[in-house]
């Protein structure tokens, strides 16, 4: 019986982990780090925990619906989706596999998120900008063309070597 439960838990986790992100559909919710956990109770009820990326993320309801639907289709009739607001999502939770997939689709993966300390957040006016290598040709000769893009998480860049524009997932 214990083995069956363990297998069921693994199945539920695999099903939930494979749901694609609505806005970065080359990533699964597990790659993106928004799937925080999947638990199967002894009675077969599944609880999946998601965390939003940005406060205004319009895709949260879609993610909840998609995870619940996939789990039901996989034979779990009772599914509860929990939302974990804490700790807040960080791009550091994008997995190595997720970063590889982003780069494979021409999107530069994020660098390490800035470290948070207690006390006031310092304001930097020096214009220091991160060096982002081109995801297509690897050149370091790139520049930011817009800090905001089509979704909250991305900025727009251009490569000076291969001349291609590309998107970059901003670290937060």
């Amino acid at each position, binding site marked *: 019986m214990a083995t069956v439960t363990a297998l069921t838990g693994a199945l539920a986790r695999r099903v939930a982990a494979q*749901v*694609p992100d*609505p806005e970065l*559909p*080359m990533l699964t919710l597990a790659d993106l780090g928004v799937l925080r956990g999947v638990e199967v109770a002894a009675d077969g009820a599944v609880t999946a925990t998601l965390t*939003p990326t*940005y*406060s*205004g*993320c*319009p*895709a*949260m*309801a*879609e993610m*909840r*619906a*998609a995870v*619940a*639907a996939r789990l*039901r289709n996989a034979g779990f009739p009772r599914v*509860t*989706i*929990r*939302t974990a*607001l*804490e*700790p*807040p*999502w*960080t791009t550091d939770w994008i997995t190595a596999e997720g970063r590889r997939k982003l780069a494979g689709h021409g999107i530069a993966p994020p660098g390490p998120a800035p470290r*948070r300390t*207690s*006390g*006031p*957040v310092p*304001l*930097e*006016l020096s*214009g220091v900008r991160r060096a982002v290598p081109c995801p297509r040709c690897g050149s370091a000769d790139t520049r930011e*063309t*817009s*800090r*905001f*893009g*089509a979704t*909250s998480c991305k900025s*727009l860049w251009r490569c000076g070597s291969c001349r291609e524009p590309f998107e970059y997932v*901003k670290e*937060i």
Partner: protein
Amino acid sequence: MADTEDDHIYLSLAEEHGDGDARWAFGTGFEDPLHGVETAVPAGVDAARLAADCAALADDALVGAQRLAQWCTRAPELEEEVALANIGLDLLGQARLLYTRAGQADGSGRDEDAFAYFRGADAFRNLRLAELPNGDFAFSVVRLLWLSSWRLALFTRLAHGAPDPVVTAVADKGVKELTYHRQYAADWAVRLGDGTEESHRRMCAALAEAAPYTGELFTGAPVCGVAPADLREEVAGVLRQVCDAAGLELPDARPLPGSGRDGDRTVHLAPLLDELQSVARAHPEGVW
């Protein structure tokens, strides 16, 4: 391979999820943004006070987001339009969470729409700086610099343990967003202040126009346990840092009497809400 992956992706988006599932692309609209979050108000917390504070902070965000959205199709460049809309979207997300929390805490069970669409201007408690018309780009930059610096200073404190865990969580996430909102405004303030004679002149005018409205940022009752007066030094320090880098003087001004937090309004909020609320009020039970 890529085609197969893409087909898979779009098939997934078109999947039937069954009755009752909220869909963002089509279907029944939005669902509770605090869905699945523990909603009990902690013992010892004044629930009515918590609700009022959440609603006031949500009002700042909603009104601010609406002003930012009004730049769409009017911004100097497409990149700035995208930036302002993105910043507005973050604020709208914060507003949704805080309105929902307010409706839980005050026991009324009102949802976010009841707060955003079905209250008149006299019920709003936002800072009056947020409701002023956009003016020129310089004024919008100055307003965003003040409001994002103030909200970041407040959220930094709330993120380290507000009396309510939902507020703590909203603030903790909001700190990351407000950090780049403030960065955007500060970078533009330096660029315009240290730019041409015309851009410098407009920044001086914008700082002077905003100045009388900044007094109420630092007065009044505590917000979720943080006294606004305690934010003054940090926020003024940021404004001074930016003005020094931009070659601008931070003007002194006599604060406008009253406070948006007490329900004092300018003439500009009602028309803003008329536009914001028009569709919801014309079709109060509308679904799509």
